[in-house]
């Protein structure tokens, strides 16, 4: 683990290497932001995690909220009492928070409020690659887009100022390649946090009943006009390169970096307008830039967000300029992330220039390498309790059952050989989709989701199942942490983001409180017992909940290492008949085949004992480490 104390370094002007997300965290500390709320999600997680590590020492308040909407609401309350706040989330988190955000835009804020949303072009760790900049257009909130860690910090500070000047929340939109890029960052002065707020009654502004909302909508549109002036004057919107060829490029975010390098690669004499404040756009600046070029090329990742607006400006103010991008003719891909190569290819095609490199030769040589190269997709870890849970579910539910799944490590259970997972949309969707599937197919329906996801989004769905008497079984895969995003605490862990203890919220009691009659808990590694519990659950006339509880193996391994407990790996004895049942059923990375024989990889084995319990010949031996 990197030493996060660098975030508290009280030495302005020092240049340090920071991850984009750490740079935002440093920006929080330099801006005097005093309330930070978040729900973890890649690629945004390290913002909250970094602040959590230093919050009590720095004197600010941070929390892992149950979901992104709650996170926004908590901050909206504090910001309306004049305290500076920030909420961090991944792109799809903004969908969860959208209900709050859309109307908070009407209400506005008194203390500066920044909403960070981290997009994930290429879906490295996400279920979609939506372009969250459209939320800026949709909600009328200002939006800043950093291209590197230094800007990520600078824009966090600027966002607070813009927010206070306009009385509006400000979106800070990053992408994976901004949040998860390390680069040099020059530190500024740390600011004193100020956690003390006051609620000043202002009912017309703050209570959005229809009469007030009509008024505040108008006020919001006035604020947007003022924001346009800020955008025209913003130092984040600027021409970074002048060119004489009549070709101009407009770009933002990580795409700007590729554009700059592609221009160098092609040796183009092109001008570049870099946009850092991308809502509202500086229309006058864009008009002026359009006027100075014959061809203007918009280089951006994902949707043609800038292109749409640049074309609208061009139509009104510079109709003779040709604008290129991905709309009329797609010169750049609209899906996936860009690269210097894809940008260079698009530019070369538009300008009619030959690429200076033989990518075709490289591609064919590389295709030859990839042809017979085995894949190495992400998999459940050796000793992961989800593997045991999925084995039990498949054993009880078989091929006949339906298995709607959810967002978390357990989505990896969809891959062979476990093959558990039939439908996956978003956080908490498994319990909802299960009810639709069960109602129209009559199949046994086993929904799975994790402990953190349960608190995040499953409860209304579970109440719905009780209310409408849906015959579904919800299996909560409780590994006592938010594993996939880096082991953040959640309401069931009894720990807070401040590092203090709190009341553990019991999943079983919540389920019972929702009205579920059959609620049971089992250890999935105890295959027989767990199978019996699940079987009984499927026989219930209405909804049932089974909690499969066993800690994330990464946590257990860490804990054993700390306590000095030695793991004795399991062994394959000579009773083994090479039937490959363990390999076929489990896909555990600690089970390897060497010269046709199954062996246990001693370095990887965590002594969970699952393989021993599936071996039909009792040929795998060892003692399970709890």
């Amino acid at each position: 683990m990197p030493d996060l104390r660098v975030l508290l370094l009280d030495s302005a002007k020092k240049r340090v290497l920071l991850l984009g997300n750490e740079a935002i965290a440093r920006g929080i500390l330099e801006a005097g932001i005093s309330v930070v709320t978040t729900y973890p999600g890649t690629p945004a997680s390290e913002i909250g995690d970094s602040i959590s590590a230093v919050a009590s020492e720095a004197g600010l308040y941070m929390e892992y909220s149950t979901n992104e909407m709650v996170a926004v609401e908590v901050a909206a309350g504090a910001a309306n009492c004049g305290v500076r706040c920030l909420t961090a989330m991944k792109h799809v988190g903004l969908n969860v928070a959208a209900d709050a955000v859309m109307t908070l835009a009407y209400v506005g804020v008194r203390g500066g409020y920044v909403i960070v949303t981290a997009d994930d072009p290429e879906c490295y760790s996400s279920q979609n690659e939506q372009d969250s900049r459209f939320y800026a257009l949709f909600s009328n909130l200002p939006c800043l887009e950093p291209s590197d860690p230094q800007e990520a910090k600078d824009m966090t500070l600027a966002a607070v100022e813009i927010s206070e000047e306009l009385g509006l929340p400000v979106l800070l939109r990053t992408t994976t390649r901004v949040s998860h890029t390390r680069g040099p960052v020059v530190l500024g002065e740390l600011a004193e946090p100020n956690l003390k707020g006051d609620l000043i009654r202002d009912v017309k502004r703050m209570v959005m009943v229809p009469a007030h909302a009509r008024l505040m909508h108008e006020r919001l549109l006035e604020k947007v006009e003022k924001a346009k002036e800020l955008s025209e004057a913003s130092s984040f919107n600027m021409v970074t390169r002048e060119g004489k060829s009549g070709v101009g490029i407009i770009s933002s975010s990580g795409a700007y970096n590729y554009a700059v390098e592609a221009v160098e690669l092609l040796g183009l004499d092109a001008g570049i307008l870099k946009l850092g404040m991308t809502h509202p756009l500086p229309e006058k600046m864009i008009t002026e830039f359009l006027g100075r070029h014959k061809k203007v090329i918009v280089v951006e990742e994902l949707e043609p967000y800038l292109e749409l607006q640049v074309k609208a400006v061009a139509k009104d103010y510079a109709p003779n300029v040709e604008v290129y991008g991905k709309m009329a003719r797609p010169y750049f891909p609209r899906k996936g992330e860009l690269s210097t190569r894809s940008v260079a290819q698009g530019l070369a095609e538009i300008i009619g220039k030959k690429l200076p490199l033989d990518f075709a030769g490289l591609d064919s040589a590389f295709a030859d390498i990839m042809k017979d190269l085995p894949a190495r997709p992400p998999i459940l870890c050796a000793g992961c309790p989800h593997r045991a849970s999925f084995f039990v579910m498949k054993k009880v539910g078989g091929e006949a059952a339906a298995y709607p799944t959810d967002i978390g490590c357990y989505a990896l259970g969809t891959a062979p050989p476990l093959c558990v997972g039939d439908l996956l949309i978003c956080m908490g969707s498994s319990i909802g989709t299960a009810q639709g599937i069960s109602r129209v197919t009559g199949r046994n329906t086993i929904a799975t989701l994790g402990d953190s996801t349960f608190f995040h989004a499953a409860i209304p769905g579970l109440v719905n199942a009780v209310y409408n008497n849906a015959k579904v079984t919800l299996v909560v895969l409780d590994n006592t942490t938010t594993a996939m995003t880096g082991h953040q605490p959640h309401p069931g862990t009894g720990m807070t983001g401040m590092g203090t203890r709190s009341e553990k919220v019991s999943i079983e009691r919540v389920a019972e409180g929702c009205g579920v009659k059959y609620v049971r808990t089992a250890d999935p590694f105890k295959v027989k017992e767990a199978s019996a519990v699940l079987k009984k659950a499927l026989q219930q006339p209405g909804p049932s909940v089974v909690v499969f509880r066993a800690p994330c193996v990464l946590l257990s391994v860490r804990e054993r290492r700390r306590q000095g407990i030695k793991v004795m790996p399991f062994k394959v004895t000579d009773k083994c008949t090479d039937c490959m049942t363990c390999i076929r059923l489990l896909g555990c990375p600690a089970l390897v085949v060497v010269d046709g024989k199954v062996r246990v990889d001693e370095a990887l084995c965590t002594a969970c004992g699952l393989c021993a319990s599936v071996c039909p010949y009792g040929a795998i031996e060892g003692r399970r480490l709890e």
Partner: protein
Amino acid sequence: MKEFNIVLAGVGGQGVLLAAEILGTAAVKDELNVRVSEIHGMAQRGGAVVSTVRIGDAVRAPTVLDGHADVLLGFEPLETLRNLKYASRKTHVIMNPEKIPPTELAAKNLKYPSLEEVRQKISRFTGKIIVVHAVQLAKEAGSSLAQNSVLVGAVAVVASFPVKVESVLEALKELVPARHVEENVRAFQLGYGAVKKERVG
């Protein structure tokens, strides 16, 4: 200064990201401009991991252009192959030969290619191949977990690598867990020494 690009490729758990952070931190110590790219979260779980380190005044993008790696640092043979698109004649491929078979191999009853086959495939891109027994040297240094430090030591030998060896060592001491500094320093030195003998140009 011209740019210097390193592609680090391995399997989740091998310490690829920490190695990249050490190299990036060292570059900052030498007052150089640098970008380090990482992939976190789901993409990491036991899967293939790639990180890039780019050093140079004009560097802006965190990722490396195809064919433009100065060093391809392979923590594992198959992962080295998987990233050969970054290699060209000028690329030094520094590779740990210890195999980590993907689970797909066992499931589909496929064979892991021999080291000779791997070497042949690499040689279609570049002749500059250096095999560093990182796990073995790390064990000699005191812990197999220090294999990433061995490989960082190996990179530091490359003549055109623009960062001072002392800066890399300093960054390594700062970033590895405090309890394991000694074996990591030893691992670094063993990696450095092993490649130094081969006189990398």
